[in-house]
């Protein structure tokens, strides 16, 4: 039981962060606006969660220009993928054992 709980990551306790990780886990990259639309959150809210995930090196940020417009896209890091999968497994395990 102890090993299961240790798989639960504090960083993923927030729904928005969990959502970001879920989307990035199955897509090569996703840009800010599409994340915002898919998750239905405000700019500021999304930006702060993205920053937290970036600071913990769970996601990678890629800034580029499409024409003259700046475009920021995000992808999951190797560490992020690993922690997210562990978190998912832990969630499944908890639900099954309870």
């Amino acid at each position, binding site marked *: 039981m102890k090993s299961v709980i240790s798989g639960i990551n504090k960083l993923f306790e927030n729904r928005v962060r969990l*959502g970001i990780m879920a989307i990035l886990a199955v897509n090569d990259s996703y840009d800010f606006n*599409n994340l915002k639309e898919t*998750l239905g959150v405000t700019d500021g809210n999304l930006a702060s969660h993205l920053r937290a995930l970036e600071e913990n090196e769970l996601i990678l940020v890629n800034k580029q220009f499409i024409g003259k417009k700046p475009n920021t896209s995000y992808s999951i890091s190797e560490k992020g993928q690993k922690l997210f999968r562990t978190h998912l497994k832990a969630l499944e395990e908890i*639900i099954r054992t309870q």
Partner: protein
Amino acid sequence: MDNKSNYSDDLKIIKKLMEDSSRFLSLSGLSGLFAGCLALAGAVAAHFIILKTKTSVLDGFLINLSFQESGKMKALLITDALIVLILALAGSFYFSYRKSLKKGLKVWTPISKRLLINLFVPLIAGGFFILLLFIANQWLLIVPAMLIFYGLALVNAGKFTYSEIFYLGITEIITGMLAGLFQESPLFFWTLGFGVLHIGYGLFMYRKYEG
């Protein structure tokens, strides 16, 4: 809040986001039904009006015609096939749009863009190759090429939508290979691949996901 329900809600949300963001689920079974019926209508027109029920062996029949007549016939057959293709594509866009409105989903997403790119790359390559066959007068290889390239396009696009599309693609490829082996009846395989298979697939999808 109770931990258990919290975790299971988390899991549900994760699963839904992973599913919705990686696959285009607005594809409707009606598109398949519509495309299949159009193909049947196109085949009927080809058989009764253009070829005048003479035979389904194109070359043998075409050889006995004057140069002008056979040229006209080929142009009519190509036009027939193109009309079916354009109307079928228009139908699939329309039915997808309708289904996404009904489900409150967006049509134009990163995943639908990727789906279209993956569908159209083999389709356009196939169209170009068929044009080459047409110019080289390799008339009997056109239907096998149509079915095989279409099947490859579906296999490619299948990664971004319902997995049934992948299997439909495999079936189209096999039909195309058979059409290549039995070149004396191209219209039969064309009707089977674009008509019968689409209708079967459309009915199956409609009953499974929309019925």
